[in-house]
Each structure stands twice: as structure tokens, then as C-alpha cells.
């Protein structure tokens, strides 16, 4: 009995040790990144390694923010594009989802299948032709080109549709009897009841747009229009090889997401894995 208990306790201890090590491996590199932003170049490349900088210098931030590219502009571009994509998706995807879940109309199944077919094509395979189309629209290197192709998504429609179809029709009928129009039923009844699905969609789009790299790389071509990810990626081709500046740029791009993540971790996890977990 006693040895059984001992065995159980030591298994638990080993489990915690393994999990603790795993957590160190996922978190520590970001701590390393943070301290690198406070170091001089010589300190970063020093052997043996040192975690803490000898002096806490903010020079790297000052330099990257003021002199390299135009960081405040990258920050604004990323924030503006991300916010627009999130708002447009939440509104238009949920409006379409409401139609598919709660309205009767001819060709409904066909149109729904049409949207779902879009889920079978990875968007990247046709980015070249999308770029050619943006050229024809004179939308290259503009916010339109960064935002509009991603303003709605088949995935978003699917996600909200799944949720809205479980809302009992009685709720909607009650509003209709009081004379509400279809839009009012959507806006006043269906939307407030779908907040969890909308939150998932918003987080999903936030992370994917903020972190997106290939499309903003293709569709923008001047420093003024770059987003953060593209801006820091191009730091090195602009002959910035200093690790302290690269880490500072990288850290600036990661921090806003990390702050949100720390406060709303549960919502991030459920938002990003929505679609993969049933129910």
C-alpha cells in the first residue's frame, strides 16, 4: 500500500518535471528575445552566454523606432488592417451565416455549398493572379489591397452558421410577431446570442491577419505600406544585420499579441482551434 502510494507520487513528480521542462522550452526563448533587446551587439554574441544585459539599455528601441524603416507606420498599418479585417468579417460573415441558418430562399443549398467549396482551396496557390487583379484595380500598395480580399471568409460563415442554427426559432418568431424586419431579427436577437462564435471568429482573424506574411509581402512595395511582419523581414535585406535590432523589431511585433494572449488565453485557444473541436 505504501509503496503503491510512493510509486504514484513519483510518477506525478516525473509528469510535472516533464511538463515544466516543456513550458520552459516554449516560454524561455521569448524571455531570451526580450533580454536581447536590451543588450549591445557584443553582449548578444558573447561566449559564454549571458542572460541578463550588463546595463539595461533602451537604445535599441530608440534606434529601431526612429531610424530603421518607419516602425510607427508599420505598427499603424498592421493595427489598421487587422482591425478592419476583424470588423468586416464579424459583420458580413455573421450576416451571411444568419441567412443560411434562419432564412428561407431559393438556391440556399447551392450557395452554401459554393462557399464551402472555397474551404478546399488554399488561398496562397492563387496569390499571383490575385495580385494581377489588384493591379488591374489599382489596389496594389493600398489598404484596399491589404484588406478587401480578406474582408469575408467562408470559414467565418461556417463557424457562425454552426452556432446560429442551434438558436431556437421561437426566439426569432417572438421578435417577428412584434414586427421586426429580418435585419432587426439578425441585429437584435441572433447576433447577441452568438457572441461566443463571434469572439472566436474575431480572435481567429486577429491572429491570422496580424501574423500574415506572404500576402502583405506580395501586395505592398513601399516602406510606407509595409505591415510589421514584412517590415521586420525586410530589415535584414536593407543591410540591417545587427541581432539586437532584429530582436527588438521581432519583439515589438510579438508583444501586442502576447499581452492579449496573457489576459484572454482561454478565448485565444478556443478561437484558434474552433472548427477542430466538435460542439
Amino acid at each position, binding site marked *: 500500500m505504501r509503496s503503491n502510494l510512493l510509486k504514484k507520487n513519483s510518477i506525478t513528480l516525473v509528469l510535472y518535471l516533464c511538463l515544466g521542462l516543456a*513550458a520552459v522550452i516554449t516560454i524561455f526563448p521569448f524571455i531570451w*528575445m526580450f533580454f536581447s533587446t536590451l543588450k549591445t551587439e557584443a553582449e548578444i554574441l558573447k*561566449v559564454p552566454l549571458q542572460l541578463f544585459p550588463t546595463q539595461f539599455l533602451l537604445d535599441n528601441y530608440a534606434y529601431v523606432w526612429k531610424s530603421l524603416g518607419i516602425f510607427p507606420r508599420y505598427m499603424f498599418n498592421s493595427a489598421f488592417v487587422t482591425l478592419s479585417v476583424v470588423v468586416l468579417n464579424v459583420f458580413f460573415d455573421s450576416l451571411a451565416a444568419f441567412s443560411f441558418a434562419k432564412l428561407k430562399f431559393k438556391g440556399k443549398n447551392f450557395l452554401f455549398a459554393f462557399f464551402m467549396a472555397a474551404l478546399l482551396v488554399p488561398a496562397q*496557390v492563387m496569390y499571383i493572379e490575385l495580385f*494581377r487583379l489588384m493591379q488591374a484595380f489599382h489596389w496594389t500598395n493600398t489598404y484596399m489591397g491589404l484588406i478587401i480580399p480578406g474582408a469575408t471568409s467562408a470559414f467565418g460563415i461556417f463557424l457562425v452558421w454552426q452556432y446560429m442554427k442551434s438558436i431556437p426559432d421561437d426566439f426569432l418568431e417572438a421578435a417577428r410577431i412584434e414586427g421586426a424586419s429580418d435585419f432587426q431579427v439578425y441585429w437584435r436577437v441572433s447576433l447577441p446570442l452568438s457572441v461566443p462564435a463571434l469572439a472566436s471568429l474575431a480572435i481567429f482573424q486577429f491572429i491570422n491577419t496580424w*501574423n500574415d506574411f506572404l500576402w502583405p509581402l506580395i501586395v505592398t512595395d513601399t516602406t510606407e505600406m509595409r505591415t510589421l511582419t514584412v517590415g521586420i523581414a525586410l530589415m535584414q535585406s536593407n543591410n540591417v544585420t545587427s541581432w539586437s535590432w532584429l530582436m527588438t523589431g*521581432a519583439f515589438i511585433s510579438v508583444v501586442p499579441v502576447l499581452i492579449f494572449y496573457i489576459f484572454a488565453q482561454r478565448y485565444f485557444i478556443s478561437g484558434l*482551434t474552433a472548427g477542430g473541436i466538435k460542439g
Partner: protein
Amino acid sequence: MNRVKSFLTEIWKGRTAYLFISVPLVITCLFFFYPFVRTFFVSFTQYDGSTMTWVGIQNYTDLFADKVFVTSFTNTISFTIESLVLGVGVAMTFALMINQVKKGKGFFRGALFLPVVTNMVAVSFLWRLIYQRTGLINGLVRLLGGEPISFLASPTNSMPAVVVTSVWQGFGYSLVLLLAGLESIPVEYYEAAMLDGANFFQRFWYVTLPQLRFTFLFISITGVSGAMMVFTQIYNMTAGGPSNATRTLMYDLFQRFIHLDLGVADAIGILLFVFLLGFSILNLKLSNRAD
């Protein structure tokens, strides 16, 4: 005449719904299906952005005779297999562990998921620093008395190094899905297996794995399509090198795009699409037969 009229009445009745779906419909047609169809069409032409000549399937036959493309293709396949096997293995190991502990579940789940929310450009730079001769890993190697290892500059080590970075960034995603799957397996199944005298490994093999088959199906479909599209870490860590050792299909496509070899680049896009569609259909068929 009457049928046309009743058809039009039906359409008129649905006008609000059509209005509600109009914006996503226009955007999907214009910015998704149109470029896709055009990609398919242009892949049969030679096109530099101004003059277009029909060449039939020549782009495709040329591609398979092109050493750089074939290398990109095999690199992409090995990246996909390695990152998926390693990623699912690591995710499953830690999902099982987290499922066993009572305290701190949320913390470990959150900590292991953390890299998933961070952008791949920053992660690529971070790992380039870690892989340096004077970086974290070689610091550990020195501590253990070894010689510093060359990672990204070595043709043999660069691909495994990129795989490790990708798995580090992405395994938390599969972990969360697997953990949710594990938590939804009814305890009674394990109790019944224990009554039948099943040991730990038998319970894992006969209860846990079969119960997770839909999770595995989902992870393999999304994982393969994500891995086949690998681009950002290649662009930012190795630029396809050294000597094309990490050049992948999307990187090859991008290079041909900036050199205005648009017909061939589109052909690569179509091949990727066909491959992924075939894989998804095969996977769904196999899982249907298994049921």
C-alpha cells in the same frame, strides 16, 4: 411563361437573404474563385505579365524535368512528413501528460500553446539567433563539452533545423485538439478495459487511439495542407539554402513569380492544389471505410 414568373417570384421573396449574402458572395467570386480559375488557365501559357502564349501542358512537363523544382518538391514532402510526425508525436506526449495531472492543467496548456499565437517572422529570427555558433543551443553543446554545430548553414542540418522551429511554433495547436479529444473519452471505457485486465499500453491502443481518430483525421488534413504551403520560415531563416537544401514549393513559386515566370509559377500552384485535394479526398475515403 408561368414557370418563369413563379421562379422570379421565388427570387423576389428571397431578396433580403440575397442582399445579406451579397458582400461575401461578391468577394468570394471576385477575389477567390476568379483568380483560382485564372491560375488554372495561365498555367497552360507562357506569360511574363504582358505577352501570353498558349503552350498546353508544357509548363507541367518542363517542371518535372527541372532539377530545382524536383528538389523543392521532395524537400516539401520531407518537411511535411517530418514536421507532422514529430509535431503529432510531441503534441500527443504532452497532451497525455497534461490529461494526467490534476493541478496546473490550464497553465501548461496555455504555456505550450503560446508560440502558436506568435508570428512566424519573429519566430524565424529568434531561432536564427538560437541556432548561431554563439547561440543558445551551441551554448548548451559547449557546456556539455561538445564542438559547436552548424545548423542553418549546413546542407544536411538546415532542413531538420527548420522542422524543429516549425514544430516548436505549431505543436500547441495539435496538443489542444488532442487534449480536448482525450477529455471527451468517457471514463467508463477505461473502467471496462481495466475490468478486462487491459494494461496501460492496451488501454492506450484499444481505447484512446480509436477514440481520437476524428481528431487525427482533422490534424492530418489541416497539418498537411499547412505544411505543404510552408514559406515564411524558409524565406526568413534560410532563403531556400544552402544550395537549395530547404527550397520548398511555395518558395519556388514565389521566386518564379518575382522573375515573372508566371505561367510556370501558376502551374506549381495548381499542382499544390491538386495534391492537397487528392490527399483530403483519400483521407476522408479511408476514414469512411474504417468506420
